């Protein structure tokens, strides 16, 4: 490629967000470096979720990796441990927990524009403390990193529009709040704004060039604490866990721009906030996760960790009912069963785009046999250029497994189908 072409495509790429790419150059440059870092987050996330039932198989020493002498201590140059019995306190715990190794705020949902067109969206902000050691006195010291992903699922395009960013914490350019949710990554933001004493909501603004969104999310209920009061185990080893709460049924409104087309949108969204320090064993291949806003006003979260050949290593879930009651599903109680596959023409990866999900019947108002169907098959996110990972992250409908009646809408995330995550 000639220099001019290269420059133009690069420029175009950076202006146009990270999707509109002539891939070759971009891939090289971007992957080369940023990728490695985001990979770290991604891997941390994956490790966190890719819990080890295999922990049972692995010798205990292997679980903590090389960090055996540090993870358990409370030294200033160590990551704090996630422990059972710590009560989450809001709004403080909506804010950041910079001592922990990784943390993310993950918002997904369905949007309707004024013409009735349906789209899915995803906005994720990550915070990473890359090293436990004191980062040094420089104002540029990389003690905290902030990363973000944003994607739009529009059936008209038949694939995801996707963009991402990563920076070191550098207030006020890239900032993060401790008292409540407030994250700023240059001009990408996710923050809580209090309208008056009673009501308030999240607002997120993302401009990725190719697409942009400005959405407000108004909660209608208290946060749903997953696991044991927010202590969410990922493996038999109690240290392998996260603090994890969800906010289903967020009333969403705002604007969405795709290319030159502006849309006024409304919908329902879901927010996950999770933080942890533990490095989890590598012997899981990936995970499958759903977060569904139910039409009856409730919310359903479920995940499974997969080992080789799709075998479930650990599962868990939470069903929050509109009444305020909550059911928590322990390991083995949730079952994921593949129904239909779709193969990516780009990467050759084969994903389960339709699932049967079994949940236990303990007097809840959901049938035990559920089906998950996608808004569109191709919601694969090829971020080899950045995180190095290829995964599927998309809008899905939840249906009654017997009647086929739609029970809710939400998001499905599947990882580890294309290749084992590069460690």
């Amino acid at each position: 490629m000639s220099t001019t072409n290269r420059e133009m495509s690069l420029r175009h790429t950076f202006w146009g967000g990270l999707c509109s790419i002539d891939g070759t150059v971009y891939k090289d440059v971007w992957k080369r470096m940023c990728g490695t870092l985001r990979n770290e987050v991604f891997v941390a996330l994956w490790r966190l979720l890719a819990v080890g039932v295999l922990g049972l198989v692995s010798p205990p020493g292997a679980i903590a990796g090389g960090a055996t002498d540090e993870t358990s201590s409370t030294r200033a140059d160590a990551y704090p441990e996630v422990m059972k019995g710590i009560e989450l306190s809001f709004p403080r715990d909506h804010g950041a927990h910079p001592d922990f190794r990784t943390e993310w705020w993950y918002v997904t949902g369905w949007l309707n524009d004024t013409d009735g067109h349906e789209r899915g969206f995803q906005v994720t902000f990550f915070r990473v403390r890359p090293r436990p050691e004191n980062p040094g006195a420089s104002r540029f010291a990389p003690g905290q990193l902030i990363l973000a992903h944003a994607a739009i699922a529009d059936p008209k395009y038949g694939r995801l529009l996707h963009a991402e960013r990563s920076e070191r914490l550098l207030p006020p350019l890239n900032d993060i709040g401790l008292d409540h949710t407030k994250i700023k990554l240059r001009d990408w933001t996710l923050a809580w704004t209090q309208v008056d004493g009673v009501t308030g909501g999240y607002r997120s603004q993302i401009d990725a060039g190719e697409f942009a969104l400005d959405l407000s999310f108004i909660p209608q209920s208290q946060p749903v604490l997953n696991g044991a009061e927010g202590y969410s185990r990922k493996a038999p080893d109690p240290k392998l866990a996260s603090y994890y709460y969800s906010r289903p049924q967020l009333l969403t409104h705002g604007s969405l721009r795709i290319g030159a087309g502006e849309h006024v949108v409304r919908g329902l969204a879901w927010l996950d906030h999770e933080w942890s320090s533990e490095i989890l064993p590598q012997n899981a291949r990936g995970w499958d996760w759903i977060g569904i806003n139910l039409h009856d006003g409730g919310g359903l979260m479920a995940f499974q960790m997969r080992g080789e050949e799709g075998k479930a290593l650990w599962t868990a879930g939470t069903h929050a009912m509109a009444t305020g009651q909550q059911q928590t599903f322990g390991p083995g109680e949730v079952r994921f069963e593949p129904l239909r596959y779709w193969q990516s023409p780009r990467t050759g990866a084969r994903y389960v785009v339709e699932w049967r999900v079994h949940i236990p019947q303990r007097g809840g108002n959901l049938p035990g046999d559920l089906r998950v169907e996608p808004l569109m098959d191709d919601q694969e996110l090829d971020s080899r250029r950045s995180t190095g990972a290829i995964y599927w992250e998309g809008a899905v409908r939840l249906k009654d497994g017997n009647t086929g009646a739609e029970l809710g809408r939400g998001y499905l995330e599947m990882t580890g189908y294309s290749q084992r995550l590069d460690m």
Partner: protein
Amino acid sequence: MNRKLAGLFIASLFHRPFASLLSLLAIALGVALGLAVQLIHGAALDEFGRSARELAGEADLQVVGSREGFDESLYWVLAQRKEVSEASPVIEVEARLPGRDRSLRIYGVDVFRVVHVQAALVPQIDEGGDRLATLDRDTVFLTAAARAMMDGREAFEVQSGVNVHTLRIAGAVPGAMAGQAYGVMDIAAVQQTFDHLGRLSRIDLRLAPGVRREEARVTLLDLMPPGVEIRTPEASSGEIMALSRAYRVNLTMLAAIALLTGGFLIFSTQWLSVVRRRREFAVLRALGMARADLLRGVLIEGGLTGLVGGLLGLVLGHGVTVLAFELIGGDLGAGYFTDIRPELVISPAVNAAYLALGILAGVAGAWLPARDAARAQPAVALKAGSAEGVVQQIGRGRSPAVLGCLMLAALVCQLPPIAWTPVGGYLAIALVLCAAVLVLPGCTRFAVRLLDFGRGVLWRLARGRLSAIPGQAVVAGAGVVTSVALAVSMAVMVSSFRVSVDDWLSKVLPADLYLRASASSSTGYLDASALAWISGLPGVSSLTPLRAQTLRLIDGRPPVTLIARDVEGGVALPLVSVAAPEKGGAADGEALPSVWISETLVDLLGLAPGMRLDLPLGGSRVGFRVAGVWRDYARQNGAVIIERSIYLELTRDDRVNDVAIELTDPGLADEISVALRSRFGADRIEIARRDEIRALSLAIFDRTFLITYLMEAVAILIGLFGVAATFAALATARRGEFALLRHLGVRRREIARLIAFEGGLTAFAGVMVGMLAGGAVAWILIEVVNRQSFHWSMDVHVPTLGLALFGLSMVLLAACVAPLAAANAMRQSAVQAVKEDW
């Protein structure tokens, strides 16, 4: 002209192979030298420009400060501007590598930002490396060339102050240009490791879509703190151009002079060949050859010599270039491009241009002889002895022309430089050389009168001939005059320069011992505690610490050096002028601190003693009064000196680059050196005695002027070639005369002596004129060319003895060469030669 006729002329070149070969060689040398200078410097500049562009990446604008950088808060200001879409902060250091004689440039970057702007600075982690390696405080990413420097090691040491840090090599910089040796680290790591907390050297900006570059530059200019520039990336390559322009132009001019000398040589051989072939041409004309054909024929001879010489020069020039790259690098010994490894690029345009110059020199040299040959009346020319008449013609006095040339030369000397190039000076040199050649006949007559002693028959014959036919002196001596003038002027200039530098060195290096942690551009330095320790050493009587910094004073020019040291009111400086003492009770009631500026700044900023100069120090502009002008041969871009106490007060920067140490007894130098080395580590400091620095400086000086010595030698050789060629040709034309002398009883050996006398006399006149012209040229070089290109003055120093010896040997060599060259003509039998004329 048909081919047969052209062949006739070309064949004549082979009839005088010696002269033809010499002309050819002269042209070849001129072309080769000019081309080599151009190629070498062009390649180096090109390489530098490309690397500057590569490093700038896609930046639309660059914010650059001095070596010490600027306050990092500017980054936050710029990154939030709406005109700016991407901002990438960079801190750049020349990391000293303890125990090595070179440093490593390290760029501290924000890995998340650099990817948007500068692909050439994007680090890549080695296969299997830690994913967070780009953020670690002790990792470095090296370009292929830099990694090659480390001989396969996985870690190496860098020095900051007098401390050493170990850096792990964690990966590569794949976007770097081949041959570029540098490292990339995390910006925070560089700030911390090299004690640059809060500082940045550069911010590269990409502008938001639709924002015009020049408009943004003007808007953002207001945000720049004092001493910080905002400019386009192209401007930085312009800076290095400015840095080496003077050197490059001067070398190219020297090559041009060599080419000119070659042209003179063609002129003299061609003229004599025409004279000798006068009757031949007359016959050709009588046989019906047109005047124009004759003219063209002679021009073809010159042009062909130029062409072949030029071709040879091209080959030679490329050879010299390759050799120079191998041996001395891309800067011809001047030290501008030490990090650059240029490659030879064969450019058809440049080659064609130099070939054309060679042909031009050949044709121009043949022009006058050709015109003359074509003008001659065949009937007259057929008669014997007419050759002399032509030579006589050249010898006509041309006093008005000489005067005109000299006056014009004096006038153009007054011109200011054009585009930083002393065009007027070079024009004046050409005019002086021209005048010297024109004045030669008159001078020959004068010289002959001057040598009105001795009664030997041959001596008188030689003198008689020369005063009667001074044209011979022009033809033989033109080459001598130009080459002697060139050699003398160079000798005078270089010796003036060297003596001045020597004086200057003794003035700026008064102390017994000098200590530094690294060159001032590099990351080693000494701090207050180190100074305190040194001053406590027994045997140390006093310390003069020196801090060197850079300041951006002039847009588009390389930074100016700031030196902070104890100046004792200027007494310790090599001053060339001082300000009148300030009148007491100035109106503002506040006396400004003093600054001493180097001569460069007088020229570049139009400053004079007593004027005010604002310096960007400690983030603000501080007013100073120019207390004096000092001579500085070390920093071509200009330097200012202020008192260290004032510097400390303004910047709170107590680091020190150099310390001058006065000892109670100079004999203690070795003892003190040992103590210093054991305290700071032998490979972390450099200690030098005054005489060592002085010797080193002069060695560098001599190396820099190596190329000029070389060209001088070439010029002298060409001059001698001229004498030899002339006498070879003249002797052939004078066969009749020699035969007559033989007939009158003069022996062959005596004729050789006659020619030797003539050669010596001719050379004497040529050397005399050459010396005078050389003196004038030297004056122009010192006062105009050097002053305008390098902005420094020097004291004129004429190496009298050397020049006398040189002149004498030129005369003797000419006296030896002339009969040797004429030997062939003298060998002919007297009778036959005399017969030829009847």
